């Protein structure tokens, strides 16, 4: 294992070692991923693995595992949409929660009997809860992975339909970063477009934080794989 040094109590290299030693050392996984971890270390020496479950950018995420991961596959970088992209639905949710206060100024339900008024409020708060839950789940489970073998986009397009798109690192042909607009520039998030020679011609990391850094890492990883053959 090469020297992987992170300035933290629990360095990324150590976390990688632990993760690998759990079940994969026997399969030679450690050896297979050590070069990629070196690349990660060189591109993002200051980044540490994040144990925060709501993190949007984490190298070697310690508690995350995807069912599409292969036995010799290590998640090197995990990305989610930037937290700031949730502001829209959070505000909408707050407005929905506070909307019944309007009834004290405009008694819109006055014509209904008391029991109907009560159940209308119950229904309204249920719909609000459902809206907030759906939006949160949609954000939380829409993740992008860069592993030592592939780039993976896991998305749940609607209630019961999931979409998993992946391409091997060697199949990447072009990587483009787009940070468009005042707010994305201010909060440093944007899209990473990955053109591939795989069945899916393009994989898009949507509104992810530090897109340039992610793209640079991908480029370095691609160069490493090309060199390795």
């Amino acid at each position: 294992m090469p020297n992987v040094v992170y300035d933290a109590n629990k360095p990324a290299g150590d976390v990688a070692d632990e993760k690998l030693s759990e079940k994969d050392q026997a399969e030679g996984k450690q050896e297979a991923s050590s070069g990629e971890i070196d690349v990660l270390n060189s591109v993002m020496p200051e980044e540490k693995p994040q144990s925060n479950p709501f993190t949007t950018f984490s190298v070697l995420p310690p508690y995350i595992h995807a069912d599409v991961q292969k036995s010799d596959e290590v998640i090197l970088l995990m990305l989610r949409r930037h937290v700031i992209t949730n502001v829209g639905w959070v505000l909408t949710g707050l407005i929905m929660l506070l909307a019944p206060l309007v009834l004290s100024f405009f008694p819109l339900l006055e014509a209904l009997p008391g029991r109907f008024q009560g159940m209308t409020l119950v229904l309204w708060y249920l719909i609000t809860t459902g809206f907030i839950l759906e939006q949160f789940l949609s954000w939380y489970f829409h993740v992008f992975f860069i592993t030592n073998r592939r780039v993976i986009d896991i998305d749940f397009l609607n209630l019961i339909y999931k979409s998993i798109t992946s391409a091997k690192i060697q199949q990447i042909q072009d990587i483009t970063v787009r940070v468009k607009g005042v707010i994305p520039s201010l909060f440093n998030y944007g899209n990473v477009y990955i053109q591939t020679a795989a069945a899916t011609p393009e994989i898009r990391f949507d509104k992810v934080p530090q897109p340039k850094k992610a793209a640079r890492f991908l480029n370095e990883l691609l160069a490493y794989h090309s060199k390795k053959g």
Partner: protein
Amino acid sequence: MDSAPPFVQFFTIENVWLALKLGYILAFLVYMVFAVVVVTQIRLMVNTLHCQMDGLIKTVGWLHLAVAILALLAAILIL
């Protein structure tokens, strides 16, 4: 009112409340189905992506369904 056509005679105050009650029950029923779908969706998501919040998210989904069922029962009993 006796001379009014049967369609108009249907709109007595009792029938209007009954129709409204059925409408509310239908809305709560639809919401309960939605809550079942959310539980299914959470199961699918958690099976696809394992993380440390799995248990909490599943619990929230089941609680949401329980509240939806209670609200449906309340609508049937109260309205």
